[in-house]
């Protein structure tokens, strides 16, 4: 009996983040103590960029103060230590997303990751016989979805323009849900690449990865997953998801700016030509030509983002210590509170209310422009995102030019969301739209 009780109690602690746990975590984030416009900061813009715990900030500083040197070049002691730590960071991040270290390429951010793939595929057309099979040409198709962030749309538009391939998209319905009934018609034998987001940065809805991957692989297409809004909030197993490439940004998952990850399935990563060329990505160089190292080094030309990679690993350790299952459960709870609370306010339309989501919601307050909603909230110390959130086509499809987005993280309390919801309700009387 006693043992059973103990197990249940532990399970409860293990599977959720209680308000007291969050209060304790908050002490790790110096910025959360800030006052903004005379009010305690309520930071609900973690979807744009998360705040950073002290251990992450310290990791970066400590590296610069005690081990700073260039990696993968030079043989002095500090260079060896830095290289070792840099590669350990890769191992840490690989384990975190269910990948192998040699499948993890450092980038500046997810945007660079998508561009790297798009340019590598584009270079395949002119990089010699080894790569010819990957080249795109007229008649080939690239498929995205209508809810993509511009970072997972424009690089593909540009690739289509450069190669003569056609860009197609899986549309969304009036509610913002992907029209998966059209999947078979849109992803066909002509499809070479299918790129989509794991979690929409506007709707917060988790997309059905398995269904899309199954169809894409059935027709032999490469799958590129934008994991920017899932990596910080959900346990991620890229091998299990069976995607070919994935990208995400460190700064959205408690790490500094300037570091991102491109995951690529090992065989595929070694079969695409490099994008940026230069130092540290080669084996032999003559005045006429060069041969390249295997992945990931072949994609890491020039001096790398060493301190940022080490800080990202510190962020991953921090998240892992909390437990990504608990982080995900907390996200589900936040999303329920956001959706229920916003839906209960007269004149508020929540975008894409259906489906499982992370702790993020976008909404429209009838008669009040998003910028005005955001200004009112800012006056109360509440930071939200306003605008099109880099997803103009989705907003246009939903009949809007802009919306307001609240996005939480592990440090977001239920009390903060309540304060936010009250404040959203108050916008209506302030702007004179309450009936």
């Amino acid at each position: 009996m006693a043992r059973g009780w103990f197990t249940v109690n532990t399970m409860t602690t293990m599977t959720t983040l209680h308000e007291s746990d969050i209060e304790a975590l908050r002490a790790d984030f110096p910025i959360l103590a800030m006052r903004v416009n005379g009010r305690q900061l309520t930071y609900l813009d973690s979807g744009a960029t998360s705040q950073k715990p002290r251990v992450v900030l310290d990791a970066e500083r400590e590296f610069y103060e005690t081990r700073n040197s260039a990696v993968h070049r030079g043989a002095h002691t500090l260079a060896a230590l830095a290289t070792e730590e840099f590669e350990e960071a890769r191992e840490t991040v690989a384990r975190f997303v269910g990948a192998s270290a040699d499948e993890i390429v450092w980038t500046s951010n997810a945007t660079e990751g998508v561009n790297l793939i798009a340019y590598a595929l584009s270079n395949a057309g002119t990089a010699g016989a080894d790569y010819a099979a990957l080249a795109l040409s007229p008649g080939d198709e690239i498929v995205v979805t209508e809810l993509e962030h511009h970072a997972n749309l424009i690089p593909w538009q540009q690739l289509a323009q450069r190669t003569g391939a056609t860009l197609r998209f899986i549309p969304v319905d009036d509610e913002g849900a992907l029209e998966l009934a059209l999947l078979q018609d849109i992803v066909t034998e002509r499809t070479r690449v299918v790129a989509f987001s794991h979690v929409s940065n506007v709707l917060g809805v988790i997309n059905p990865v398995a269904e899309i991957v199954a169809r894409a692989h059935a027709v032999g297409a490469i799958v590129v997953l934008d994991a920017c809004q899932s990596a910080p909030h959900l346990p991620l197993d890229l091998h299990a998801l069976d995607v070919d490439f994935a990208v995400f940004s460190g700064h959205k998952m408690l790490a500094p700016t300037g570091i991102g990850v491109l995951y690529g399935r090992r065989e595929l990563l070694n079969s695409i030509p490099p994008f940026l060329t230069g130092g540290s990505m080669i084996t032999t160089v003559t005045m006429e030509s060069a041969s390249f190292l295997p992945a990931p080094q072949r994609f890491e030309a020039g001096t790398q983002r060493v301190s940022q990679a080490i800080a990202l690993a510190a962020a991953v350790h921090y998240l892992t210590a909390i437990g990504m299952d608990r982080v995900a459960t907390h996200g589900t709870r936040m999303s329920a509170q956001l959706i229920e609370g916003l839906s209960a306010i007269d004149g508020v339309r929540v975008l894409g209310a259906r489906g499982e989501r992370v702790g993020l919601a976008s909404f429209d307050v009838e008669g009040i422009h998003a910028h005005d909603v955001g200004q009112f909230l800012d006056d109360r110390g509440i930071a939200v995102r306003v605008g099109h959130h880099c997803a103009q086509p989705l907003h246009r499809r939903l009949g809007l030019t802009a919306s307001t987005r609240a996005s939480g993280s592990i440090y977001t309390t239920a009390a903060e969301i309540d304060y936010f919801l009250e404040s959203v309700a108050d916008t209506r009387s302030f702007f004179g739209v309450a009936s």
Partner: protein
Amino acid sequence: MSAEDLQGLYQQLILDHAKHPRGRVLLTHPTAQSHQVNPTCGDEVTLSVQVHDEVIQAIGWEGHGCSISQASASLLATIVESLSVHDAGALLDEFRIAMRSRGQIELDEDHFGDAIALNGVSRYVARVKCAMLPWVALEHALADGE
């Protein structure tokens, strides 16, 4: 900033103009027209003018966006009609200097009339672009000439 400042930004006159905009129809036969977009928020203003003998004979606009950009367009339409191109340009410069002053310079009521309600904007750096949007459209339209 405080709730008082927020009232200063969103004066009743601004909310009224945003809700019941003046001059919100494009001219059928403009001599010049300019479409301006604020790429960060998607706010849009198209402003059309009819200029003859260096005088703004008529002005009309269309657009959508936040209450600051829409009220600013509405107020602009009420004050620049029948001004000379030269005077409108001078007014524009005055408006821009006040908006960029971070609350240091107020709009002159003799020149701007009701549009002085926009004074509060200059303390909100992120919103200056909103108030400027229709004025930038005017600048481009006037630069296109008759």
